[in-house]
């Protein structure tokens, strides 16, 4: 039987919100497109070149869209199709962010981020977490874009190498804690080896794939690193279950 939370998450209301969310992003895109084309002509840009850029953008968008299509499977399974549509069509888009906020919401609500473990209140907490965690991006992008050129000049005085080291340390702290909670704690407290194997296999495969891409000098391979690492990790863990 379909659980109660899934009915709420995949009902007409949620799909309607999905179309509203996607529609707003499409409306802005349409307006920007029309104005860019109009002022491009006024600026003396070649009509043929503008049409060629549309074609190139269509083709270039297909590859990442396939990655998003496959990546969002995770979100569809965990939260239902309508929520995945809302978040991926015009939310943050990064599957990593969506899972971090879902995981934080689930933890705060005391539920599991699985179909069986989810509850209606857990779903509500996750939706609040996704919204509060991503609204600042929209506001910074929307309200402050007119001042960004000045801010960029100001921040440019900083040391990019230092920023890179601090960013890596922050990510390692955050993902280290998540890895410990979901991969190492189940092994130590319950003797569950499968989640631990999932984490370790994905870690090793991920590193291997990235280093291989560097060695082959094919940076485009890196787009698929997360997908490959996760599929191999999940398959190994499922076999060990």
């Amino acid at each position, binding site marked *: 039987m379909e659980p109660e939370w899934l009915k709420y998450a995949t009902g007409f209301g949620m799909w309607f919100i999905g179309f509203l969310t996607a529609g*707003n992003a499409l409306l802005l895109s349409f307006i920007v497109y029309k104005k860019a*084309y109009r002022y491009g002509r006024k600026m003396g840009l070649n009509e043929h070149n503008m049409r060629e850029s549309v074609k190139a953008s269509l083709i270039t968008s297909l590859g990442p869209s396939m990655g998003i299509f496959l990546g969002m499977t995770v979100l569809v*399974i965990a939260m239902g199709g309508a929520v995945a549509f809302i978040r991926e069509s015009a939310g943050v888009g990064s599957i990593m962010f969506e899972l971090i906020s879902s995981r*934080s919401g689930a933890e705060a609500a005391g539920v599991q981020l699985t179909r069986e473990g989810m509850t209606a209140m857990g779903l509500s907490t996750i939706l609040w977490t996704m919204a509060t965690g991503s609204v600042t991006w929209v506001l910074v992008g929307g309200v402050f874009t007119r001042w960004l050129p000045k801010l960029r000049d100001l921040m440019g005085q900083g040391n990019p190498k230092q920023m890179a080291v601090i960013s890596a340390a922050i990510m390692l702290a955050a993902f280290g804690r998540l890895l410990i909670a979901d991969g190492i704690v189940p092994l130590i407290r319950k003797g569950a080896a499968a989640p631990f194997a999932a984490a370790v296999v994905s870690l090793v495969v991920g590193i291997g794939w990235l280093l291989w891409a560097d060695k082959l000098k094919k940076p485009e391979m890196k787009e698929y690193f997360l997908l490959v690492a996760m599929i191999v990790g999940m398959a190994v863990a499922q076999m060990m279950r």
Partner: protein
Amino acid sequence: MNEKAEKYHGMSSLPDEQKEAIIKNEYGSEIHTWGLTLSLIHALIIFLPALFLFFVYDLFPGWATIGKAFASTAAVVGPYWFIEPVSYFLVLGIGGTYISFLGGNISNMRLPVSAVAQEVAGVREGSPEGEIIGAIGISVSQVILTVAVLAGAVLVTLIIDILPKSVTGAFDFLLPCLWGAIFGQFAIRGLPYAIIALAVGIPMVLFSGIPAWTQIPIMVFGLAILSLVLFKKGIWVPK
């Protein structure tokens, strides 16, 4: 024609001041108005799923629970709210920035699309022509993204119930796999910090008794401060 002129064959012959005036006073001004308006509307739309559950099904977890979940999320992604718009502005331009921070998928889609569109049109990045072509490219990418995401949501929903349990069961391990892969990605860039994160994190999570929702902020700020201090002292500085 020399190599440079050939590469930038799409540049307009109008004087630079005239092109910049069009971008600043006409195009930019109109885009700022629409971008701000629709971004503010979007900031409200983002809350609709949660508000829908509240008003229709009377589901509200309470501000304390939302606050805890927000603190955990903000500790990880908070810096990116400010770093990303500033860092990507040069490539995305005015129109591209508004769409990108409303529609997401910046590094994996908007940046490559904008770069390819400008390359094909033969315009220089950061120029007025680059602004226009980048905006056209990013607008087009939003249409493709919407179609792909809608197709993904509908198709996966349709096939999920016919998938065998052995396949759907594997998704129980999705989170440890995701954390492992991303941890590995950053471990390549800062192995000493990866070792410290595990050495400090394992006893903290298992034995400290510190509330779970505070553990991420504690580790994030602790390692950020440590990395800053060590960098200033010239320790573990990448080549």
